[in-house]
């Protein structure tokens, strides 16, 4: 009985964490050298119903798309949008950090390099 109670508590805690963790897609993009040209990526990503926030980093060549809670977005869809905007995706990974965290992390890295 105690084991069952403990398991339930642990499972609840784990599920609660999953429920509240941000889901952010991080894409590495080739050719993204100019904000004037890359704005199409941001506008198309923001237009999606699943999108909570978008961050573009030209120096690190990263596009980060934070999803709304419970939403999903396929890698193929992300690649297609970025391809349509004129760029090539070299890799995609998922992050549990929100866009604000990723932005702060990348900007602190860039600051440290200076």
């Amino acid at each position: 009985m105690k084991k069952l109670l403990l398991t339930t508590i642990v499972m609840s805690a784990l599920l609660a964490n999953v429920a509240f963790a941000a889901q952010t897609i991080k894409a590495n993009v080739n050719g993204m050298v100019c904000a004037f040209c890359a704005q199409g990526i941001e506008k198309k990503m923001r237009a999606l119903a699943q999108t909570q926030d978008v961050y573009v980093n030209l120096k690190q060549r990263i596009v980060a798309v934070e999803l709304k809670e419970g939403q999903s977005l396929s890698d193929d869809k992300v690649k297609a949008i970025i391809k349509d905007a004129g760029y090539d995706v070299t890799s995609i990974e998922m992050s549990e950090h929100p866009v604000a965290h990723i932005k702060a992390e990348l900007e602190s890295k860039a600051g440290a390099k200076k």
Partner: protein
Amino acid sequence: MIYNRFKVVLPLLAMLLSQPATAGPMGFSESFMAMGDFNNNWRESFINYAITPRDAFGISATYMRADDKSKSRTLEEITYTRLLKRWNAPHAQANLWFQGGIGALQGEDKLVGENRDFDKVMITPGVQFDYETTRIYFQASHRLYRATDINHDYTSVRAGFSFYESDYDKTQPWFVLEARNMNGLSEKIEVTPMLRLINKSFFVEAGVNNSREPRFNFMYIF
């Protein structure tokens, strides 16, 4: 010599690549791009709409004038822009564009003892190549401006550098040097050093050319 070769090779390239289209700058799919290029002798206003990631249709109005003011032209045209090829590298991008149009040309030649006015149909196919990183920029373009007994072909080369890298949502300043010539309107090559400011949805350029005349350009995507 090099300039003469340039004048021969680029028109040939334009012919080879020509499809129905115009080119040069266009925004992302389903966006409008407005552009202006103004100095004393060349004033161009242009807007297009990207129907696909690679194709845009637009309208353009151009005023051209000879250095000695003996000739003036106005051109209203329908334009087509096509991204022919794009190369994406980790820290660079290069593009080959086709840009062209067809429209109504009105001209005035002030001849000794008489003024001659005319209306003609003008076609304007051309190509543009550009290469850019976050720090350097190069562009070469050649566009034919042809009507019966009229040749005002336009050739331009630009190169520049950014003063520093900037974040995506910050304004980035560039220095750009342009050399250009409008055949039949100017015997000289106009050289203009310009300061360019790029932000997400606009860029503006301003400078003074080698005839000490001001120049102003802008682009805006919406």
